[in-house]
C-alpha cells in the first residue's frame, strides 16, 4: 500500500464523525439520509465525509435503482484484535533486535574490564 494511501486512511479516520460513520456502516449499509439522521449534520456535510472515506478506500457506493447506499468495503475490515496482534508483532521484532544489541553492549563492557 503506498504511503499516500496510508496517510489518507489516517486522515479519514482521525475525524470523530467519520469514525462514527464507519462504525455505523459496520452494522450494515446505509443511505446518506440514514447516516445524516444521528449526526445532526446536513446531507451535503455527510456527503463530504463520505467522499473522504470513499477516497481512502474504506467504503463504497452500491447502486440500487435510484438509491445509493454506502457500505464498508469488506476487504477493509480486519478485526481489532487482529491489528493489535500485528502491532504487537511489529514491536516484538523491534525489541528482539534491542535484546541482541544489549547483549553486544554487555560483551563490549566486559571486554573493557570487570564492570557489571
Amino acid at each position, binding site marked *: *500500500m*503506498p*504511503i*499516500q494511501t*496510508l*496517510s489518507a*486512511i*489516517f*486522515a479519514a*479516520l*482521525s*475525524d*470523530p464523525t467519520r*469514525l462514527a460513520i*464507519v*462504525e455505523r456502516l*459496520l452494522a450494515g449499509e446505509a443511505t446518506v439520509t440514514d447516516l445524516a439522521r444521528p449526526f445532526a449534520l446536513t446531507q451535503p456535510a455527510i456527503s463530504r465525509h463520505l467522499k473522504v472515506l470513499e477516497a481512502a*478506500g*474504506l467504503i463504497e457506493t452500491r447502486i440500487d435503482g435510484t438509491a445509493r447506499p454506502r457500505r*464498508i468495503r469488506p*476487504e*477493509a*475490515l*480486519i*478485526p*481489532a484484535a487482529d*491489528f*493489535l496482534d*500485528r*502491532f*504487537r508483532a*511489529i*514491536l*516484538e*521484532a*523491534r*525489541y528482539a*533486535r*534491542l*535484546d*541482541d*544489541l*544489549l*547483549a553486544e*553492549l*554487555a560483551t563490549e563492557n566486559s571486554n573493557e574490564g570487570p564492570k*557489571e
Partner: protein
Amino acid sequence: MKPLELKTVGDTKVVVTRQFPAPPEAVFRAHTEPRLLKKWMLGPEGWTMPVCICDPRPGGTMRFEWTDGKGNSFHLTGETIEIEPARRIVHVERMFLPDPTPDNHVETLFDPVAGGTLMTLTMTLPDAAIRQAMLASGTADGMEASYARLEGLLLGWT
C-alpha cells in the same frame, strides 16, 4: 523474561511493557544514543535509518528518517520534554507520511527488576479516534511502518 504486553487504557492511551535482560543504564542508552538507535529502531528487513538525531535534553529535538533503499522513505520528528538518566524519558513525536500525524505523547520508564529492566512505554494520543487510526496504521509511533507490513492493513471494530 515476561513477554511483551500491549494494551489500550482509557480512550487515549496505549501501554506497552517489555523486560530486557540488561540494566536500566544500558536500555536507556539504547533509547537515546543515535549510534545504538540506528541498530534496532528499524522497520522490516531491508529498512535502515540513515538519519538519526536525538538530543535527550528538555527541549532537545529528535529526527529519525527511514528508507528501504528503493526510493521509499518517511520520517519522524519530536522533542524531549523531560529526562531522568537511566530512568525515564518523556517526549512528543509525530510521523510524516508525508502529512504530519497528530502528536503522540510518549513516556518511557525503565524500572530495575530482578535480572534486568522492566520498560513501560505509555503513548497518549489526542483522542480515541486518532488512537484507533494510529494502531490501525500499524505505525504506533510510526517507526515500524512499511509498505510490506501495511499491505491491506485497515481496520474494523468488530
